[in-house]
């Protein structure tokens, strides 16, 4: 059954008409799915990288259709992907390079030639380098196919301060699973019989193929689905059980589950014996974490915890406690994720169908460019010193900002930003603005005038993804793929791809030799090692190379060495102990909600990526304004009704927006969507509409990974 499923998934097109989850009815497609004539490329509207086929009419991009050949995107395209066309034809797009003419944020711009923008930026960067050394520059970016070029420019320039997005995203998850299994696995939701999801709002925050596999699994095969969230999300509405757990106590729930499983000896003993390290310590460690204790912490009845733990263990290995993938919530986030990983290991779902599966990759070649010298200065965020286990390549965002603001250990005076809007993606907008203010120079590369671009000195307009060719990207997973993003239409404005923007700067910074190649050469080198004949031709024609079927159990082999210090799955981690952290996840209760305040929780919506895309008309139609969710009980106490204007205040900021009184949230929490309250008038539909959560969020991070902790803010709500 799974093989046939897979053949459909990876196959040539039964999928277009069919369904992953309901194969019986789709073996014979009604309309033989013909791939419409078009150019295959890869979506960039969120980090999923779904394959699309662009259909052109009269030289304009008419429609993006899903490309069924990509097993990861499961032949679908979400609302955002469909709306990408509107980014291209957005009249408020960045159309040529701009240099600031007035004060920062005043909105006076001087359109300039590329030469002038490059010259100006290179001069500014060189000035900072002269005064403060190359470490005086900060290069921050978010995930993207051309991010590598931007990052490389920063490194070739000699800066140690390359700041990538994981510490605003999944760093704590990645670190926790890596430290346990030596790798970050995928979850085989297509075949799982029992799924527990805590907070990861998989039906509103679409992750391919998890979202599609889970909805199919839950609705078609009746997989049991337990969901924990302070908010009644769309995901909650599809779950068999929704438990509005007390925020910040997921770790107590997980520890109690492990307690029950070990106490009742429902664990996978053979697996633990053969592959793991530290079982005895774990057994001892979880003894005090009884379900009765957890009930007091989580608000979930002890009998429910016991029942769920039993069902989970009994469904193993086709049972997963799903990892989730988003920012940390609390300062102990890493330990909570570690506990998830351990819980999964205890029932032996590792590398089994329906369990956790280490990712496969499609091999590709690599373009060889000239290497540069390693930076001489240490990183400004002192990640090696304070977060020795975190990824030093990516940095830690919030500690970095605090250090830059302090000027410690050295001044950082120039900031280059690619494809990111730190004013909305980083908590405490006020402090991020301060960081901008203390910079001698800020340069932004983006396709639209983001809020950060609005406060920059130079804005470089990047070509839209449909207007450029990017490097080949490998999508690891249970169903891995390599995808190509290739140009669909010529740029309609005076924009350039990131690589060319970088090259223009490199030339003026004397770094030409490191960037002396074209995107075609780069792609060609990558395509050369694709595991298919005529790789380049194939990937240009199909957009995707995907061929392998799921492989289960390769690492369940006595000679396999896990990529951990001990070579085993580490329930107990010596390395954590050495770094001064708890080697086994120890419970610390979350800070109590102060009287008269609410805990602010964040979440996603399927039409919004991070804090972006809210201004695209087709998406904006569905969410014209954000509001603050409030349970009817406190709302009645505060005399607030739906539609009332309220002021929400934290210790770092205050905003005004409309209230939504709803049963769909715990009485001690409030919630608002991101993506609104923009400062940039070029995002006219959301400029000054609603409010930005980044204004309210206070600075807090996970102790181990340095990942921003997003649920540690308490706010007051009052009717205006």
């Amino acid at each position, binding site marked *: 059954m799974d093989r046939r499923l897979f053949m459909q998934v990876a196959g040539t097109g039964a999928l277009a008409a069919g369904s992953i989850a309901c194969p019986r009815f789709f073996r014979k497609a009604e309309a033989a799915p013909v791939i419409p004539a078009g150019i295959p490329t890869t979506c960039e509207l969120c980090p999923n990288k779904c394959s699309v086929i662009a259909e052109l009419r009269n030289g304009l991009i008419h429609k993006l259709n899903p490309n069924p050949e990509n097993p990861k995107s499961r032949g679908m395209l979400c609302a955002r992907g469909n709306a990408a066309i509107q980014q291209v034809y957005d009249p408020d797009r960045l159309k040529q390079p701009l240099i600031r003419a007035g004060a920062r944020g005043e909105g006076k711009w001087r359109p300039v030639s590329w030469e002038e923008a490059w010259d100006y930026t290179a001069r500014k960067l060189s000035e900072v380098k002269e005064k403060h050394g190359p470490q005086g520059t900060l290069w921050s970016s978010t995930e993207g196919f051309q991010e590598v070029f931007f990052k490389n420019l920063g490194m070739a320039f000699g800066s140690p301060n390359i700041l990538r997005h994981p510490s605003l995203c999944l760093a704590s998850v990645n670190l926790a699973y890596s430290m346990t299994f*030596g790798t970050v696995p995928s979850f085989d939701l297509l075949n799982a019989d029992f799924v527990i999801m805590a907070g990861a709002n998989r039906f509103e925050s679409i992750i391919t193929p998890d979202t599609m596999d889970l909805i199919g699994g839950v609705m078609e095969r009746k997989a049991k689905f337990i969901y924990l969230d302070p908010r009644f999300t769309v995901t909650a509405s599809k779950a068999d059980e929704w438990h509005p757990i007390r925020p910040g106590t997921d770790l107590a729930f997980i520890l109690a589950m492990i307690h029950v499983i070990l106490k009742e000896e429902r664990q996978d003993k053979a697996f633990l014996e053969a592959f793991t390290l530290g079982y005895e310590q774990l057994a001892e460690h979880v003894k005090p974490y009884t379900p009765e204790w957890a009930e007091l912490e989580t608000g979930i009845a002890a009998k429910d915890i016991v029942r769920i733990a039993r069902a989970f263990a009994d469904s193993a290995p086709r049972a997963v406690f799903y990892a989730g993938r988003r920012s940390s919530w609390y300062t102990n986030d890493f330990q909570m994720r570690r506990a998830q990983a351990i819980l999964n290991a205890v029932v032996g779902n590792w590398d089994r169908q329906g369990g956790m599966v280490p990712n496969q990759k499609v091999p590709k070649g690599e373009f*060889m*460019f000239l290497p540069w010298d*390693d930076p001489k200065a240490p990183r400004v965020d002192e990640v090696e010193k304070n977060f020795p286990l975190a990824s030093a390549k990516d940095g830690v965002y919030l500690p970095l900002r605090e250090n830059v603001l302090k000027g410690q250990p050295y001044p950082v005076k120039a900031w280059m930003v690619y494809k990111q809007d730190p004013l909305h993606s980083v908590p405490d907008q006020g402090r991020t603005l301060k960081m901008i203010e203390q910079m001698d120079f800020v340069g932004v590369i983006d396709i639209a005038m983001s809020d950060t671009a609005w406060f920059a000195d130079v804005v470089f307009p990047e070509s839209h993804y449909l207007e450029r060719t990017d490097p080949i990207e490998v999508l690891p997973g249970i169903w891995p793929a390599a995808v190509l993003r290739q140009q669909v239409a010529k740029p309609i404005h005076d924009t350039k791809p990131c690589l060319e923007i970088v090259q223009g700067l490199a030339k003026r910074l004397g770094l030409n*030799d490191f960037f*002396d*190649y074209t995107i075609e*050469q780069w792609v060609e080198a990558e395509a050369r090692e694709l595991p298919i004949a005529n790789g380049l031709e194939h990937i240009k024609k199909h957009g995707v190379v995907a061929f392998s079927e799921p492989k289960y159990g390769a690492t369940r082999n006595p000679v396999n060495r896990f990529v951990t210090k001990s070579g085993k799955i580490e329930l107990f981690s010596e390395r954590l102990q050495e770094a001064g952290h708890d080697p086994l996840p120890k419970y610390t209760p979350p800070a109590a909600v102060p009287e008269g305040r609410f805990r602010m929780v964040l979440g996603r919506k399927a039409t919004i990526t991070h804090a972006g895309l809210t201004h695209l008309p087709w998406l904006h139609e569905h969410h014209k304004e954000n509001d603050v969710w409030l349970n009817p009980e406190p709302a009645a106490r505060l005399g607030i009704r739906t539609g009332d204007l309220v002021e929400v205040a934290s210790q770092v900021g205050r905003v005004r927006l409309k209230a939504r009184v709803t049963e769909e949230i715990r009485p001690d929490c409030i919630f608002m969507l991101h993506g609104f309250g923009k400062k940039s008038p070029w995002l006219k539909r959301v400029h000054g509409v609603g409010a930005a959560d980044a204004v309210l969020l206070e600075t807090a991070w996970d102790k181990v990974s340095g990942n921003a902790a997003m649920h540690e803010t308490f706010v007051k709500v009052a009717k205006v």
Partner: protein
Amino acid sequence: MDPFPAFRRRFRKEAQMKLTKLAVIALLGLALPLSAEEKGSDTKGKFYFKKSCKTCHVKGGSALELTPLSKTQAQWRKVFDAGRHGKAGEGFSPKFGTPEQIRDIKTFLINHASDSPQPETCGG
């Protein structure tokens, strides 16, 4: 068409220069233990690893496929310090790179070994 003009240019120049010095340094350099192992350049090490090692150490290549993850830190150290490279354990001859480059490679492999705090595959 030469897809990597700059790279070749520099590499050739570097190689020529290094080769002339090599005759002098080679014996000395190889005889010395590579004591400053992790002090080499990680970035360059990755490059030289791909450049020099991956020509043979690939899937289907003339030697066993290798990535930093193939060994633990201790094992990598052994390979380099004890000169275990090659069937006969003849070590790294100048054809694999200058001692500096070998040191960079060593740094890269040890920094990202299977049991290192920052493990990584070659492609990663």
